[in-house]
């Protein structure tokens, strides 16, 4: 879940309406600001006193009916090249702040000097010849229905919009009924669910890595909000067998585990141990279960509270890393030669220290009543990189697991003088 949220955060800037200050690079021209936005862009320019309409325009864009446009807003600096060009294009003086809808050209399609309403922005856009990204993709896909990259791009647009609508709809529901009603579910998630299934059946999510900038991998994962949608829960349950079959064909592929985790978060049943049951490790495999499955085992344990399956997997990962670190340090000593200085590959490159994977192992040990082993592991990694924040994090983890004595001991280790 944490990783999904992280990816969502990474994507947020390119998907959501946002304020982007271009003041950092004052040489950027208006044409350059507009180039990545053939769908159009809302721009604001402050008055001479620096009063602007950024917040008001942004707030309006986040409300229906403007929300559906999924447009970006940028606040220009009056002293920047693009700001000066915009003022000249609109023939604006500096006595009042402005907002404007611009399209390629550059051309102004609508403008104002008062805070705009969501309806006003949507109407202004409707009167312009501009097309939203989603509409452009829909039209393209009517002519090219099997173009998977465009399908993935449209899915990302639809997912973003639906998540924002679902958030608003769920805010008004009681917390013990976190599911959307049928009508709302269909309105919010209907098109996404239909198009997701078509995309899934096209099968390109199974293809070899299309590259880091491809939308296919990100779109293949179900929305982080899918658990609140009965329709998406049903979809996830129905498609899960195909995901698990794909995983069994390639259990070392992180992308397939990520997809599986997103289905599980949407409510589909499954456990990492069951997926791998009956599979043989590859001849000569150094790790089994594969490294890519570690997150899935941890998620399973966190969900069920049963750490018995995850513990040996995490222990094997820890042992393998420790052994590798020893090899690396020996190699570094060899490179340094007899007169070489101290060698600390772990400290130098930031691994072999307290991190998420070690924390999960310690958590497993604590849940399984093995505090001595937990302590040994922490002592080993803390000795390597004794940062106070690591001791604090470990102490907090111990406290969360009810191991107060260990928590106190580790907290003391992080204090100056210890």
């Amino acid at each position: 879940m944490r990783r999904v949220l992280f990816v969502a955060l990474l994507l947020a800037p390119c998907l959501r309406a946002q304020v982007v200050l271009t003041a950092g690079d004052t040489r950027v021209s208006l044409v350059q600001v507009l180039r990545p936005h053939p769908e159009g862009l809302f721009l604001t320019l402050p008055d001479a006193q620096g009063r602007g309409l950024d917040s008001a325009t942004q707030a309006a864009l986040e409300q229906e009916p403007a929300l559906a446009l999924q447009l970006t807003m940028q606040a220009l600096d009056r002293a920047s090249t693009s700001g000066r060009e915009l003022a000249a294009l609109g023939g604006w003086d500096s006595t009042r702040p402005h907002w404007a809808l611009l399209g390629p050209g550059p051309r102004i399609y609508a403008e104002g000097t008062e805070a705009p309403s969501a309806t006003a922005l949507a109407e202004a856009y409707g009167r312009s010849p501009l097309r939203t990204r989603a509409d452009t993709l829909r039209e393209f896909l009517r002519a090219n229905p099997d173009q998977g990259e465009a399908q993935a791009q449209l899915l990302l647009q639809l997912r973003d919009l639906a998540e924002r609508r679902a958030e608003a709809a769920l805010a008004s529901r009681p917390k013990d009924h976190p599911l959307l009603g049928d009508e709302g579910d269909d309105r919010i998630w209907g098109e996404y669910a239909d198009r997701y299934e078509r995309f899934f059946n096209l099968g390109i999510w199974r293809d070899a890595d299309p590259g880091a900038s491809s939308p296919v991998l990100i779109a293949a994962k179900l929305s982080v909000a899918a658990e609140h949608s009965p329709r998406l829960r049903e979809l996830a349950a129905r498609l899960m067998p195909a995901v698990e079959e794909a995983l069994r064909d390639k259990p070392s592929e992180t992308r397939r585990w990520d997809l599986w985790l997103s289905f599980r978060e949407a409510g589909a049943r499954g456990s990492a141990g069951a997926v791998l049951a009956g599979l043989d490790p590859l001849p000569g495999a150094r790790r089994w279960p594969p490294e890519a499955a570690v997150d899935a085992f941890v998620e399973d344990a966190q969900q069920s509270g049963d750490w018995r399956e995850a513990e040996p997997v995490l222990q094997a990962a820890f042992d393998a890393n420790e052994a590798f670190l020893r090899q690396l340090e020996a190699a570094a000593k060899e490179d340094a030669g007899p007169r070489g200085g101290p060698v600390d590959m772990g400290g130098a490159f930031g691994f072999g220290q307290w991190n998420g994977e070690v924390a999960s192992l310690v958590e497993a040990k604590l849940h399984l009543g093995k505090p001595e082993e937990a302590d040994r592991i922490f002592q080993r990694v803390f000795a390597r990189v004794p940062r106070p924040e690591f001791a604090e994090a470990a102490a907090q983890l111990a406290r969360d697991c009810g191991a107060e004595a260990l928590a106190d001991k580790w907290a003391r280790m992080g204090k100056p003088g210890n």
Partner: protein
Amino acid sequence: MLLKRRLLLFPPLLAGALGAQTAVQRTLMDREGEGAPPATLWVVDAKGGRALAEGFSSLLGASALKVYQVPMKALALDGAKAREALASHGLPAAPQWYLADARTGALRARGTALPPPEAFARTLQEAGFRDRAQDLQAYLKRNPDSLEAREQLMAVLRQRGEAAAQRFMGIQVDARRERLEGGDLAGASAPEGSPKTDLSQAKPMGAVQDLEAWSAFAQELDTVFRSGQWREMDMAWTREGRPLDAASLTLQGLYLRWMPAVEEALRQDPSSESSWSLWCRMSEASGGRRLRPLLDSLRPSPLTPKSEWPPESVIPLLFASAKTPGDWQALKAHYQAVWEDGSHPLLQRSVEQTASSRESDWSGCLGPLIECCLRAGDATQADALFRGAMEASRWGSLAEKAAALAARCGQPALAARWKAAR
């Protein structure tokens, strides 16, 4: 996991930071692949002699032993390295061979004379060497859907095919990774195979040799194309393999048969790096299908910026195959978009611009754009681009570089004018 991601960054990082073939670098490289050799064969010859090393080369190349892919290091007894290596194992300073464990460095076997093939095969097996292809084939019989086993089998068979083809052709072609391991950072970042690969200088392979070298790999590739599994497989050899394919009629025939399947995959995902990598490898080897018609048949997403179409990985091939003014116009549109998209060191006179940033702006964008203009017959635009950059950057080397480019493009008058602009 996090650790692995960090480690993936290490090899290039350390290759630059620590120099060639450090122990750290070897350790990191070894960790990357499963099925790494369990031991290294060290061969120490008497001063001025090569008898033992040559004997082992021929022994390991024999069909019974080559499946083990034994890494061999040959040393001369009078060298410091040999003395150090022998001393570290407590061995006498005399001609000999020994097998050292890849992980622990421990001695696994030793001798002073060339062993008979059967005995040495047993020694290798006892040291942990396996016929990886055989192991993987046996695994695939039990698990026919395992994509990972197929990927690894394909890698092993490719490696064997390359070794045999090089032997038959009497050439040695470095793979990118080997250049990196050898400390050749510039060579490692150059396009695969260049500049050492000139297959026209190699001995041509006969049909029997071609089959002996490539039939196992070709058969496996054919199998995964027939089953459709190829789309899900990481074909690392398309990026890292030695570019020997053009010398094999077996591979050319196979590529021509299956290129339409790759093109179909590209129609579904026109930006897929893995599909392009495979297509380019097939196209370069077979020379049978041109890129331009394929690009014309693809429908990139309407959200793909002009500067990202065609995909970056295809551009070198597009450059190499451009012939008509139309080809150059298409390339020009791409570079024009790249030029207009970002900010360019060659359009700024800021003191922050270093020679290397201007250099890379020239070679990555302005140079190709000017070349496209010239070859497409638009000298006026080329001149305007040159003058704009010259005026903005006042970079001394620009005039020289642009003049050389104009001369290469058959524009001597322009070359002279640009040279004088300095």
